[in-house]
């Protein structure tokens, strides 16, 4: 068995050290070692986006990242999105627009939307659909998710 490695990262703003085997993905470590189970596993092959987290600010599928690769990096998961009080405007918009049914895709969509809005605060509908193409939802039919991201973009602009 390959020796375990010590990995030092910042997760949701907090310094974190964990032990893992090279073969463990970031998704496995988040859920099974660090108990951050908000990040979901759908396909484990990069197609569904349920496992999306931000790695140094960029959206990645955590099932396609080895945990050892994040040594020295910053990771943000769904657990780090809400402020101490209340919700992030994106989370709020998902609730208001009823952009979820079973909810398993939602953490991934919110992380992707967060990355999108950070880079492009006022995306067009086409840009939203293109950027969220790596996130699959079996329940909502996507329209409500797109509307939620549009609403989040509007509130973010209004609050600036």
């Amino acid at each position, binding site marked *: 068995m*390959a020796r375990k490695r010590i990995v030092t990262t910042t997760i949701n703003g907090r310094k974190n050290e964990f032990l893992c085997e090279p073969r463990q993905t970031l998704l496995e470590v988040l859920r099974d070692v660090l108990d951050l189970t908000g990040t979901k596993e759908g396909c484990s092959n990069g197609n569904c986006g349920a496992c999306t987290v931000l790695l140094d600010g960029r959206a990645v599928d955590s099932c396609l990242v080895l945990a050892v690769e994040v040594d020295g990096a910053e990771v943000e998961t769904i657990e780090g999105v809400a402020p101490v009080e209340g919700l992030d405007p994106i989370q709020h918009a998902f609730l208001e627009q009823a952009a979820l049914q079973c909810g398993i895709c939602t953490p991934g969509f919110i992380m992707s939307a967060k990355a999108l809005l950070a880079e492009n605060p006022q995306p067009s509908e086409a840009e939203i659909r293109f950027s969220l193409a790596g996130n699959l939802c079996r329940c909502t039919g996507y329209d409500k998710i797109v509307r939620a991201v549009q609403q989040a973009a509007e509130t973010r602009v209004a609050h600036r």
Partner: protein
Amino acid sequence: MRDFEYEAPVTLDAAVSLLAEHDGRARPLAGGTDLIDHVRTGRLKPDLVVDLKKIPELNVLEMGAGGLRLGAAVPCWRIYGHEGIIRDYSALADSVRIIGGMQIQNRASVGGNLCNSGPAADSTPALIALEANCVIAGPNGRREVPAEAFCTGPNMNVLSRGELLVELRFPPRPPKSGSHYRRFIPRNEMDIAVVGVGAAVVLDESGERFVSARIGLGAVAATPLFARDASDLLAGQPVSEEAIRRAAAAARAIVRPIDDKRGTIEFRIHVTGVLVERVLWMAVDRARNVPHS
């Protein structure tokens, strides 16, 4: 997932030594968007994974008088965000913008796309069109291979044991040149190319005559193809419907596609012709500086 060791060397020499010492049991890792799935499903069984992302040479992204140098591990997002590449090497930017979705593009590299050597790899026809040379390092030193000669079969390439791809070198683009990559897929995004075409053209000063052209084809044979005859047919010809239709016919003549759920042989041959025409016209418009939305 199967058990393996992990190393992340910070020099090229160290990476080459690790790969050579493990004699076929080690596998390079760039963005991991192919590799991690291949290990998980047992298609690849490495005992050692060598992460290449900390090696400076593999992260180079430089454009100058000598052309473009693209490190093998540079992720897609750095490429399609590069103004110079968007302007002068448009086909490359077009191709990396559609590899997977945002999450994939934030990790996946052109080096990994080429080394995985899938027949439908989106960036490879663009590399062929833009005349990229693959710089390879190994235990016996360095060598260069043109992009069209890199893949030798489905998921097979010219790399021998201990060798790795260091960077892709592109010659400078002359004035009045333009390029484009486009694929046909039944969805809007996140799909594997049924046919992919990359083309680069150089026009004369008037913009009315081809000086030269290069056409790369994907998903229509066991490897990406350089459509040499189709490309040569355009040199010296006026920019016309007729010349472009003839090049498309020549490209159709060399493809050897398979029948699968994505498309029949007949369909793929037909689409090759359609795409070659459209991609050439777009490359011409770009060479002429015709604005597109």
